[in-house]
């Protein structure tokens, strides 16, 4: 199935599901707010205690429900609150990315980024960057009909 590359309207805002770990990236998101770093309103954050909790089932369900992309975030490698959870996330991420192609989705629709509790500005930058990348890709082909 070829994704339809018809005209993407400028006002189209991708819908991105973002998983944040409680200790680093969720706090980074808070920091972005405190610093008033403006971002596109594309992200919907789901908080988990550690990025290693994120299950492929959650990620693929998000795509089936209509997510244009999924962004998993956690602490920087070596900084995990749970010793090495993010290393497990990395392994799983590579596996999930390889599966994405099978589903007919572009690799960029699943992203991983490490954002620390103090990196509010980086958080906003990552949101902007991923949103822009997904905007270029257009809506996901898996998006069910009728999803806003």
């Amino acid at each position: 199935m070829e994704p339809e590359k018809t005209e993407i309207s400028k006002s189209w805002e991708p819908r991105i599901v973002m998983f944040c770990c409680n200790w680093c990236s969720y706090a980074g998101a808070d920091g972005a707010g405190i610093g008033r770093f403006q971002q596109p309103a594309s992200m919907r954050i789901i908080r988990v205690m550690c990025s290693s909790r994120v299950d492929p089932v959650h990620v693929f369900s998000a795509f089936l429900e209509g997510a244009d992309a999924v962004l998993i975030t956690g602490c920087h490698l070596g900084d995990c609150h749970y010793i090495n959870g993010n290393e497990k996330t990395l392994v799983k991420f590579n596996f999930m990315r390889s599966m994405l192609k099978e589903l007919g989705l572009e690799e960029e629709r699943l992203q991983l980024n490490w954002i620390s509790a103090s990196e509010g500005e980086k958080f906003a930058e990552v949101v902007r960057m991923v949103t822009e990348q997904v905007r270029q890709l257009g809506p996901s082909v898996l998006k069910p009909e009728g999803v806003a």
Partner: protein
Amino acid sequence: MKTDITGAVAVVGGGIAGVQASLDLANSGYKVYLIESGPTIGGKMAQLDKTFPTSDCAACILSPKLVEASRHPNIELLTYSEVLAIDGVAGDFTVKIKKKSRYVDETKCTGCGDCIEKCPKKVSDGFNEGLAPRKAIYLSFPQAVPRIMTIDPENCIYLSKGKCGNCAKVCKRGAIDYAQKDQKLSLKAGAVILAAGFEAFNPKGLEAYRPEHPDVVTSLQFERLLNASGPYHGHLQTSKGTEPKKIAFIQCVGSRNQKLSKKYCSSVCCMYAVKQAVIAKEHDPEIECAIFNIDIRAFGKGFEEFYQRARNEKKVRFIRSRPSCVEANPLKGELRIPYENEDGSIAHEEFDMVVLSIGIGASESGKELARLAGVGLTGAGFINTSIENPMSTNRPGIFAAGAVQGPKDIPDTVAQASGAAAKAGALLSPARGTLESKKEFPPEKAVAGEPKVGVVVCQCGTNIGGFVNVPEVVSYANTLKNVAVAREEMYACSEDAQERIKEMIAEHGLNRVLVASCTPRTHEPLFQESCRAAGLNPYLFELVNIREHCSWIHQQEPEKATEKAKDIVRMGVSRVRCLAPLYKQELSLGHNALVLGGGISGLHAALEIAENEFEVLLVEKEPELGGLLRDITALQDGRKTGKILLPLLEKVRAHPLITVMTGSELIEVNGSVGNFKGRVRDREDREQEVSFAVAVLATGAEELSPAGYFSYGEFPNIITQSELEAELEGDFKAKHVVMVQCAGSRNKERPYCSRVCCITAVKNALRIKERDPSVIVHVLYREMRTYGAWEELYSRARAAGVRFIAYSDTRLPWIGENEVRVYDEITGFDLEIEADLIVLSAPLVAPASNRQIAPMFKVPLDSNGFFLEVHIKLRPVDFATEGVFLCGTAQAPKLVDESIAQAAAAASRACTILSRKSLESSAVISKVDTELCVGCGACEKVCPYGAISLTEVLLQKQGVFYKAKKSGINPALCKGCGACAMSCPTGALDQQHFKNDQLLAQVKDVFTYSEEVR
């Protein structure tokens, strides 16, 4: 139980020392009054941008401690309060304080900041060191605790002229009270901890450094310039608004200075300057940084390595020169520093910015406090303590912690604060728990049937309401499935809103609550407590963030922000519907401690724990107690070591709660906090089972035998400092002594600085001179690191004629039997020195046995073989493994008083566990559904804590018995990351509160269908 002892402690000073001491005491069963003269707790650490040597963000690591202190049921925060008098005796003090008027009602102010916006009066901001303005009504810094505004009466237009009144007009909560008066309070406390901190040196008087020039800043100002919440939002710039290209740091401004009678070394400035230079280069790698110094004193754990990285990788320049002045070019506006090069020539160098590394000094308020408390001061104005009692003042029951006792860095401050808590706890142990507050809650309601959700959407003044259409979100929430009631609040976190939430739960018979406001990371416990007070299990509550994650970051798109807020509320309702009540599991625990190692640290740790009335088992592998100190014959203050060691040994041996096992080694450890089991083997190979609730590792260090360095072992007259210690007590005849520093440290094999050797060398040089002033003593050093008050020993040694010669690591001294040849770095001469005794200052090294002990307790070692604490700054004596602590030279080389402070700190941390009646496991842990478990072991492999184990069980199905493996979770070890839940192929394992169905409910409701197809 004695009745004349009050189970409360007054802690004076709300910086990191005061906060740490308060938390330890509050967690050990004591009531704490935390008294702070400023409007917020946090102290100097809150002003810092990053901390050395890890470049951790200071605010990020400090804030959680501040919030914890403000929420603790046993801590009463008395901010903006001053001590007037301390009367009474140990066990029964009366502390009189004045609570200054903030002109703001603390019970009403929510810290929204609307008043700040409308206040017309701008004044210089002390928190930003005068670099930025603040208003006359202010919050010291964004994460201030408590988050309550304060009016500065001198600058307030209404209070001084009777006009304006804007803040009162704009405050929707009516919190402004211009008529508020100071209040006097009288508190009963059994002990007092003085933790009033320090005052940074004010360089105003040093006109040669041009402190008034806008581009000559103090190091504290520079911290603010680097900080993202500082005056330029972290964009480093000069007064002209340009980015600096060259920055100079001048060390020892207001320290190591006889003329200013600041003779001591401020201990922290070298490291913070290195850190600031490194961070400046991280802001812009093109910036050139030069640090003008006498010696770089990088003596703490990881400091030398950080310093070398700054020098070699970051290319920070270190210039060994103390400039006499800073010149300003009035035409070009540049700053110029003339200085002497190492070859003696004079250079003039231009810089865009000059940072004065100002020293830690005794504050006037600290001295006044000491006077009120009746405790003695040192000549420099710090609180006077002794080597063997580094937390005790001359007045019983009054203890000191942190920089009020002398310059020190954050980890030493935290250790001393915990140590002071142990001392206060020991004094008051008969009254432990007598004034403890426990919050009482009504019984929980049963949660059955359909979810009934109540939704509260917060306006947060205009913080949310200004960008998100809150009424629209509320009416949308009302349409969602299972929502029984939805409404808005101006400030959902305020006290009165809590009352309304409780009423709402009762009125509508709610069994789930969702609040849409700010971040759960700070506010979840508050709402959870309100739910619990209304009889609802706290895990049936969900907080979603529509402020930091929505209104604040979509300020230009109010419509999109409103849509997103609706989505967030919908996802939250979907989640809260699936939530189930959870309970923390009570785990039994023993009440005794194991202390491993019987050196000065282990002895003190054992004694402090025993004085807190808990049993201690002290295990020492040598046949005798005393450790390293047995080889040291005199202390830095000139007294014989026996003076402090012998009474200590006596006390430990005589203490009824301490069991000593010498000549014994720990060979095995199982279990977890509260219930460790181990085996101890003695020299006759007899083994004994031991059980303990907590363990303190005080395994010490040993002096390196410097074979291979500086001809050691080739001639009998080349000895080490500890061999010299013995000789100085006996037959010492040498006439020409040469000491060589860094004999085996600060090199490739051992890159760390051993911290104590410079002070030891100076001490022993002085001892030699005192015995016989005609002996010629040379000390060959790389950098003299006689930090803190011991700088004075260095001055005394020079005055006594000890000759100090700097050598470079690229041109090491040559040592012969009767002669030493060295290239003097400072004068540039090759010297030949006659020597009949050569003393090598060999470093302290970690014992090899650490490698056996570390895996037993599942604790890490650092690259030098010392034990590695969980957080180098704020948890210096804790391991990540709960219930295991460390202290003394097991952590890194340190002096006797520092070891003792750390030992008391480890004891204090241990007492926070030992004083509990039971342990609580976290509720957010994983659980196994044994029906579904196939025993594959995937979970066991991913668990980083060893909390999961497979056990073989005998099962019966249709009359057939068979064996199978099933996974089981130890709730005491599970930390609730959820990695196992992800790894489980059958869904048998799930993480409570983040269950698969709960997360999927959120995922499924991220999106709505445009025509409501569902």
